[in-house]
């Protein structure tokens, strides 16, 4: 009994240990080392990489990451809640409507971001159409700014918000809204006083599920943000490639790992076990 289980568990355990735990451990160790002369790392051990994170230059990157992620999370909640409500109240076609939200999530994030570049750039579809209609004379600068990054994040992570919101809304008894209506509440009042307060667990789960990947994003800001919108993910990538300052890149990675672990801890508390 136990022998077979051990045998079955071993490959996955070995793989997770060697390709996840050990590499993350290496990053944690590197974050306390010094930059080597030719890239790489050297002793002595130091805390200097973490002190540098508080340098105003890098502080701006962290604040920008947090602010952009906050706006994207708020956007996903505001856009996702009514959609989740629609799906939860749509009866037998629920699964179809839900699949239409999930499907784009699985089809190449990279290509979906490229689709937005196609729409937003100076000679893109929107600018071309507006110019043809005579509404604008010079193209609107819609790409390569914070706005396009936030749009890309909302577009990419909207399914992450809709799924937990749908799960909470679907469990709610529709009789509660009927009761509110019978007692004289308008639909809007029933929404604000009954449906939304009862959905708070889903709203929290959605916020965490959207916020953490937004903080760690790399390709959205790299493709849609141009050079002006550097986020933590871009900082990490840059330190490990062109700047070749691995210890500092490792220290910045630790912040993202801390965010991911916090998310795991919060999810464990708010939801039943999946595994």
């Amino acid at each position: 009994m136990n022998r077979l289980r051990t045998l079955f568990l071993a490959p996955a355990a070995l793989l997770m240990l060697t390709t996840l735990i050990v590499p993350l451990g290496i990053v944690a160790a590197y974050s306390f080392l010094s930059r080597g002369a030719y890239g790489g790392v050297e002793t002595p051990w130091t805390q200097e990489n973490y002190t540098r994170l508080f340098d105003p230059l890098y502080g701006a990157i962290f604040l920008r990451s947090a602010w952009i992620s906050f706006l994207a999370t708020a956007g996903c909640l505001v856009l996702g809640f009514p959609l989740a409500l629609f799906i939860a109240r749509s009866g037998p076609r629920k699964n179809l409507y839900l699949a239409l939200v999930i499907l784009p999530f699985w089809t190449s994030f990279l290509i979906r971001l490229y689709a937005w570049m196609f729409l937003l750039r100076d000679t893109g579809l929107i600018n071309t159409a507006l110019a043809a209609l005579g509404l604008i004379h010079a193209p609107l600068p819609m790409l390569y700014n914070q706005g396009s990054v936030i749009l890309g994040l909302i577009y990419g992570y909207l399914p992450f918000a809709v799924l937990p919101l749908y799960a909470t809304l679907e469990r709610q008894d529709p009789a509660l809204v009927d009761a509110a209506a019978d007692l004289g509440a308008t639909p809007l009042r029933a929404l604000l006083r009954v449906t939304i307060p009862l959905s708070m667990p889903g709203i929290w789960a959605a916020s965490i599920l959207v916020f953490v990947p937004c903080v760690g994003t790399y390709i959205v800001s790299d493709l849609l943000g141009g050079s002006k919108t550097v986020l933590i993910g871009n900082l990490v990538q840059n330190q490990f490639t062109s700047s070749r300052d691995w210890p500092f890149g490792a220290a910045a990675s630790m912040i993202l790992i801390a965010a991911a672990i916090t998310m795991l801890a919060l999810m464990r508390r708010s939801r039943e076990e999946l595994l």
Partner: protein
Amino acid sequence: MKRALPLYAACAYLFLHLPLAILAIFSVNASRFTVWEGFSLRWYRAMFADHDLLESAGNSLVIAVAATVLATIVGTLAAYALWKKASAWLAGSLYLSLVTPEIVTGVSLLAFFQWIFRSLHLRLGMHTVILAHVSFSIAYVVLVVMARLRNFDVSLEEAALDLGETEFGAFYRVTLPYLAPAIAAAAMLAFTVSIDDYVITSLVAGVDSRTLPMVIYAMARRGVNPVLNAVSTVVVAGLGALILISERLRRA
């Protein structure tokens, strides 16, 4: 509100799906520019004549097939073992692999490979990409297979044991056939996440292992390119079909 909600939902679905639909429409546009000039398959012909694209697509397929086979086997066995008896630290690591930002997974694997290769005289290449892909796909496989195991009636396995099967025989002849649809769905999901990955792949790939997402990324950074519209349409249609089949199987 009765009418506002469906109207809003229609707009939300347009927001989610219209960008890709527009890309597909313009992939058969005769013009190089964002002006409709009539139907043409010239960008599809250009795509099939592009050596870089074809070679990277070949690499991507080899990597995705290899990673899918390995991740599906390892993940299915792990799901079965976890179903028999939970293991907090393996479940925790699998979750951690799901929530760690891709850029961090990528740089940590890069640091790891550099560290062990210093003494082993190996280089980054297809093998490192495949290993990285197996690593981040296992969690998806475990989640999908585990979902089906939860509805499995343990007494079926107990009956097989009573009738003289070994532990492994009961797993192989009773549980595994029951899991087959979930395993197929899990494999398709692993294939999708593998063939789609850019961030981790670009960090652990060597000179001989440029994948399709890496070429797509380089093309997208250079700006809009009608050939890329055609490539995107083919990839999205292929992955979309795979995901729909996978969803069907998960509900089977």
